[in-house]
C-alpha cells in the first residue's frame, strides 16, 4: 500500500505541502495591506486553531474581504506574514472561499453536481477527467449539505439557501481544511440559518476550520467559538462579553450606531447593515 502511494504521488502534477499539525492552521503576523495609499488592513495579527468557528464582525469597508484575500493567498500583503500550518498560503489548495451569493453567475449553464465537481479541479490535475473517486467525493459533499437529490438541478433554479449550500459543498469537495465564508447568512430565513449551522456543526466534526464574515451580531455571539471585531485593525478577538462592549463596538462602527439601554439589556442599532452600501 505504501509503495502504491509513493508511486502514484510522483504521478501527481503538484506536490502540496504536508500539513504540520504542530502549527496552528492559520496565523497572521503584522499583516498590513494598502490599496493606492489607503490602508485596508493595519497590523493584523491572530491565530486560529484547527476546528474553530470564528466570526468576523465589522462595518462595510472594514477590510473583511481584504482579509479573506490575504488569507487565501489571492492578494499579497504589503507587510507581514500569513502562515497556513507554517507555510505560505500560495502553496496550499486546502483553503476554500465561499462567495456571497450575489457574486455568482446563476445563469451559467451548469448544474449543482457540475459546480461541486469544480472544487476537485485542483486535485485532478491538467489533462485528467473526473474519476470514480472524484464523483464519490462530490456526492459525499452534496449528501452532507442535504443536496444530493438536487444534483442535476440547474443552479439558477435553486433557492437562496440551496445556492449557499452548493458553495459549501464545493468547498468540501475541494477537501478544504480552512473555509472562508463571505456573509453566508444574508438574505436567508431562520430555517435556512438552522440548516447552514447544522452543516457547520458537521464540518466541525471533520475538523474543518471556519471563518465567517457576518453582520449579524446576535447570531455571532450565540453560535461561534470566538468573535473578531475588525475595522482595519483587530479591535477585539475573544468571547462575546469580551468583545461586544460599548467601547469596542463604538470603535468598530465609528459612531455609525446607537446603543439603547432597555430593561432587558442593551439594544444595538447600526445603520450600515448590508453589503451594497445601502443604509437601512
Amino acid at each position, binding site marked *: 500500500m505504501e509503495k502504491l502511494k509513493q508511486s502514484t504521488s510522483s504521478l501527481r502534477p503538484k506536490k502540496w505541502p504536508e500539513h504540520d499539525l504542530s502549527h496552528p492552521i492559520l496565523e497572521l503576523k503584522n499583516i498590513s495591506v494598502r490599496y493606492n495609499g489607503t490602508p485596508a488592513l493595519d497590523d493584523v495579527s491572530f491565530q486560529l486553531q484547527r476546528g474553530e468557528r470564528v466570526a468576523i464582525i465589522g462595518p462595510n469597508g472594514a477590510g473583511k474581504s481584504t482579509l479573506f484575500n490575504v488569507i487565501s493567498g489571492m492578494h499579497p500583503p504589503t507587510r507581514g506574514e500569513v502562515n497556513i500550518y507554517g507555510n505560505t498560503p500560495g502553496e496550499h489548495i486546502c483553503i476554500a472561499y465561499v462567495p456571497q451569493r450575489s457574486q455568482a453567475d446563476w445563469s451559467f449553464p451548469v*448544474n449543482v453536481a457540475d459546480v461541486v465537481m469544480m472544487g476537485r479541479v485542483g486535485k485532478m490535475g491538467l489533462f485528467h477527467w473526473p474519476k470514480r473517486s472524484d464523483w464519490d467525493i462530490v456526492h459525499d459533499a452534496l449528501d452532507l449539505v442535504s443536496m444530493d437529490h438536487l444534483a442535476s438541478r440547474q443552479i439558477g433554479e435553486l433557492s437562496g439557501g440551496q445556492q449557499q449550500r452548493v458553495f459549501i459543498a464545493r468547498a468540501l469537495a475541494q477537501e478544504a481544511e480552512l473555509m472562508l465564508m463571505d456573509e453566508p447568512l444574508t438574505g436567508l430565513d431562520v430555517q435556512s440559518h438552522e440548516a447552514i449551522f447544522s452543516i457547520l456543526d458537521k464540518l466541525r466534526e471533520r475538523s474543518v476550520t471556519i471563518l465567517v464574515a457576518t453582520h449579524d451580531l446576535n447570531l455571532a455571539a450565540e453560535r461561534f467559538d470566538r468573535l473578531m471585531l475588525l475595522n482595519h485593525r483587530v479591535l477585539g478577538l475573544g468571547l462575546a462579553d469580551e468583545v461586544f462592549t460599548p467601547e469596542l463596538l463604538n470603535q468598530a462602527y465609528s459612531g455609525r450606531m446607537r446603543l439603547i439601554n432597555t430593561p432587558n439589556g442593551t439594544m444595538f442599532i447600526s445603520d450600515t447593515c448590508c453589503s451594497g452600501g445601502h443604509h437601512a
Partner: protein
Amino acid sequence: MNPIQLILEPLSYAFMVRGLIAAIIVGTVCAVLGTYIVLRGMSLFGNALAHAILPGVAVGYLIGGNSQGWLFGGGLIAGILTALGIGAISKGGIKQDTAIGVMFTGMFALGIALISTVRSYTVDLTHFLFGDVLGVSNSDLWLIAIFGAIVLLTILAFYKEFLVMSFDPILAQTLRLPATFLTYLLLILIAVTIVLSLQTVGIALMSAMLVTPAASAYLLTRRLPVMMALAAVFGAVSAVSGLYLSFYVNVASGPAIVLSCTTLFILSLLLSPHKSVMLHWTGLRRRPVTHS
C-alpha cells in the same frame, strides 16, 4: 428538379465541395469557441479582434498577393499580438470598452489604408471583408482543417480549467490554476479561429459566427456540453444551408451563412423554454460579472 438532385447538383463542382468542407469546419470551430464568448460576455472583444487582424492580413497581401499562407500568417501575428495586448490592458485598469474601441478601429483603418495602396484592391478587399469561400483551394483547406483541429483539441484538453475560469475566477485562484496562462491561451485560440475563418465569412461578419450559433444553443439548454454540441451543429448546418442558398439564389456566400445563423437564432428564440434569458440579455436583469 427533385430534392436529391437539388442536394447533389452543387456537389458536382469541386469548388463547392471544398467550400462546403471549409465552411462546415469553420462553422463548427467558431461555434464551440463561441460558447465561451457568449458566456463570458466577450462579443465586443471578438468583433474587435476580427477587425484588428486586417493590418496583418494587409502586410501578407502586400508581400504575397493572394497566397493564403501569407495572409494567414500575417493575420495570425496581428491577431495574437492584439489579443495579448488587450489582455494586458484589461489588467492595467484602463476602461476596457474604450481601449478596445480605439484600438480596433485604428487597426482596421490601417489595414484598409495598406490594402488601398495596391491598384486593383477593391475585389480583394471585398473578399477580406465578406469572405470568398468558393475560392478555397486544397492547400487552404488543409490549413483550415489542421488549425481547426488544434483549436478543438486544445479546448478539449483544457475543458475543465476553462470552465472554472469562466464560471468563478476566484475559485480558479484558490485552486492555484495557472489563470494568466489560461486567459491568454483562450485569447490566442480566439485569434487563431478568427484567422482560419477569414476566407469563409470575412472580417465584417466573423463575430456572427462566433456569437450567434452559441447564443441559439444557450436558449435551448442548461448544460454546457450540450450547449457546445448544439452550437457546433447550428454552426455546421448554417454553413451548409448558407452555401446552398448562395448557389441557388445567387447571393454572396458569407452573408448567406450568417443569415442562416440568424434564422436559427430566431427559431431558437421562439422555441426556447427559457424566456427569462431575453430579460437577462437586454439588461433588464442585472448580470453580476462581466470579464474577458
